[in-house]
């Protein structure tokens, strides 16, 4: 089981590309972790304009956070994070400084 939750700034990630992003997230997870680790569930939330900041300034950054099966080694996790970031930028046209991607172990409670 894999879950990702995408927090985006209003007006930055149009609804029309969210399907493509969900497909890309799923494929990145399957490629890095294996299809047998699926399914991949994806949720969304949107921060209204004027409510999101980065470095004290209005933010355009998307925050993509997920939970993946325990036991993922560093090399595999790094590959997953980088591929997710690359795909996000390719599909949305965002700069690499406009996406944060995190993937924590499923059972991590920090």
């Amino acid at each position: 089981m894999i879950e990702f939750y995408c927090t985006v700034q209003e007006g930055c990630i149009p609804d029309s590309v969210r399907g493509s992003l969900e497909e890309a997230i799923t494929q990145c997870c399957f490629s890095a972790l294996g299809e047998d680790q699926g399914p991949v569930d994806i949720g969304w939330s949107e921060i209204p304009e004027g409510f999101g900041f980065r470095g004290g300034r209005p933010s355009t950054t998307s925050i993509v956070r997920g939970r993946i099966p325990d036991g993922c080694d560093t090399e595999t996790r790094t590959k997953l994070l980088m591929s997710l970031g690359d795909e996000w930028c390719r599909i949305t046209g965002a700069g690499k400084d406009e996406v944060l991607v995190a993937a924590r172990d499923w059972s991590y409670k920090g």
Partner: protein
Amino acid sequence: MPFYRCLIPKDSISYEKRSEIATAITDVHCGISAAPRNFVHVAFIETEEGESVPNLYGTATIEPGTRYFIAGGNRAGRPPEVRETILNGIIDKFCDITSISHNEISGIITEGPASWTMEDGQILPEPGEEPAEWYAHDAVTD
């Protein structure tokens, strides 16, 4: 990362005050930690009284016991007292700016391993192991 989510009552804080708070949170965090300013994320989430909101991973809900609540997510690896100093500093600034009392606000900072996060195309360094070039990230939007 870090990512601070401020749960606030609906229509309680103007844009100007939110902007001021976001800058203050950035000041506090960067004054204590070694993070570039451009890596400090702040979001304000308006809630109805008693409403809970999803956590950062959408896996559980945050149920604040106060009208205002700070939910922070930082890199793991700092001593607990540093985490407490950051949270207390943020709450102090929040109260200064909004004129709310300290008994109206609480918060928590959770942590995750730095290597589990990628930002600006790079895996985050562990606290205390930040290379000098990391601070070039602040030039991105300056």
